[in-house]
């Protein structure tokens, strides 16, 4: 199967040239349709920065080299104007904390539809119908009513479901999920992960799942990459990495994981 999104030799440096700090060092990853690529590592290892680089969301002070290809299109160095037609449209993102990533003063309906109307040139009514369908799909209760409510009127788990619906609204090929369950209760996490799993199968999505939580990783990822100090130290299928880790750091991580066996049950 060919890759939907290919990251090749990606390096990211912050600060002045020469004396800058390299936070991502020659990272290569392929995302495939219908599969979840996990990217694990402790905080500060460069996982989130890698995901942000795909959408060109890093500050101007970041120097990014290498290649990020979406199909035949090179995303690195693409002018912002062009990138905007990719963001949300072909590559979408879900953030860590839905209570921060949803605007508190804007209704759920309007946040779910503004980019849909912009990208797909849908009428207000059509966009609204689409939003209701999506909310129903991610199992937010009373979707019709939910549209006119504000994010604080939902629970954390429902908010993340709304954020996922928002990301999928334009039917993207790639979903970047940055610690999508970290801010949630453990009991709610499982529901979100199940949903993610189902959506990937349904929509043939290619997902990059960034997390520091190997429990989450073992529950949903098909392929895994372990990152440390900006470098990928080991890649492989989930089974391989969990059963037979080669790199000492991967082994270290697995040993540090509480009740590794149980969380696989998820």
């Amino acid at each position: 199967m060919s890759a939907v999104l290919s990251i090749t030799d990606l390096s990211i440096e912050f600060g002045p040239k020469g004396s800058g700090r390299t936070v991502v060092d020659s990272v290569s990853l392929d995302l495939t349709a219908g599969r979840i690529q996990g990217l694990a590592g402790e905080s500060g290892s460069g996982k989130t920065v890698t995901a942000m680089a795909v959408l060109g969301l890093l500050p101007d002070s970041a120097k990014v080299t290498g290649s990020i290809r979406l199909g035949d299109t090179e995303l690195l160095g693409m002018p912002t104007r062009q990138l905007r037609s990719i963001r949300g449209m072909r590559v979408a993102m879900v953030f860590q904390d839905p209570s921060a990533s949803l605007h508190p003063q804007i209704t759920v309906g309007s946040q779910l539809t503004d980019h849909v109307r912009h990208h797909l040139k849908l009428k207000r009514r059509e966009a609204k119908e689409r939003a209701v369908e999506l909310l129903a799909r991610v199992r937010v209760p009373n979707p019709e009513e939910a549209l006119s409510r504000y994010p604080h009127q939902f629970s954390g788990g429902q908010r993340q479901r709304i954020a996922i619906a928002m990301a999928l609204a334009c039917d993207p090929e790639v979903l970047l999920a940055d610690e999508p369950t970290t801010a949630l209760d453990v009991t709610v996490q499982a529901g979100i992960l199940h949903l993610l799993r189902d959506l990937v199968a349904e929509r043939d999505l290619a997902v990059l799942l960034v997390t520091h939580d190997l429990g989450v990783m073992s529950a949903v990822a098909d392929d895994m990459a372990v990152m440390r100090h900006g470098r990928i130290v080991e890649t492989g299928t989930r089974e391989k990495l969990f059963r037979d880790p080669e790199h000492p750091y991967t082994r270290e991580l697995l040993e540090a994981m509480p009740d590794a066996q149980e969380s696989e049950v998820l």
Partner: protein
Amino acid sequence: MTTATKAARSRTRGSALPRYILQRLITSVLLLIGVTIVTFILTAIVPGDPIAAALGEGARENEATVAAYRERYGMDRPLPERYWIYLVSLVQGDLGTSIRTSRPVLEELAVALPATIEVAVASVILSLAVALVLGTIAAYRAGRLPDQVIRVLSLIGLSVPTFWLAIITYRFFFMELGWAPGSGRLSPTLNPPPQVTGLYLVDFAIDGDHVGFIDAAAHLALPVLVLSLFTVGLLTRFIRTSVLEVLSSDYIRAARAKGLPGRRIIGGYLLRGASLPILTMLGIAFGSLLSGTVLVEAIFAWPGLGTYAYNAAINLDLPAVMGVGLVVGVIYVGINLVVDLMYSVLDPRVRLR
């Protein structure tokens, strides 16, 4: 949607907002009573005898005359009684009679207040418009040249004394260049518009008199310019900070990740997110405008509250001074009330408290 949830929703919507408004209204009334006490006591303990000030040199010597005057203005009665009389007449819309002009204070304030409101509101609108643009540009270009320039400009705006700027502006734009009129609200050749709001711009517009409108606008130009400079400086710095904070928030990143164009992010997400602190600051700025207007009115011969307060104070015209104090108090309480109510409009989370 089931009918049950519909009903539940209209219940929360229906009761939460009025209760919030009711609470704020009650607070405002209490504050207003406090304002009356403060203005009353301040004028009661002020050094100087208003009767002596009102009477001439000869009459002051005559004790019978002084006593008659004291009785006429109720100055011979005990303080609590005087306050009670003051409060009762206040409720009836009677602010007393000016000792200086022998006209009802309310009538005089009704003329002076709109003149000041007009300058202050025009300045707030102008300042906000300019500061929103400058503050947002500065935040977007934080640390770079446009930001540096805007920060220096706003610092200048904050540092220049308003009275000095008023004098310079008066000399330069009115006396030297003659670009704009420098005194009064209207050219002597024109008649004021039929009074509806007391704001000349609005009243001329209602009347459909465009000659008068342009003349009134021209007279507003210099005082508004002078008053706005400080407010622009104040608001620009503040908006820059607020916008900068919102810019680094997750929901702006999320809006960018959705591929929304820049102007939509600024209008829909950014400024809405920064609107609450800006609103608070706007209320404070409006208050500072009202105090700044005293000196500006003096220089531009603007017949507003500042001029009135000044004349009342130097003549120890106590009813007039109390009237001004009360009006300013009411305006401050009113601004706070409006800001609070706007909060509940702008931030859905406030409504449920």
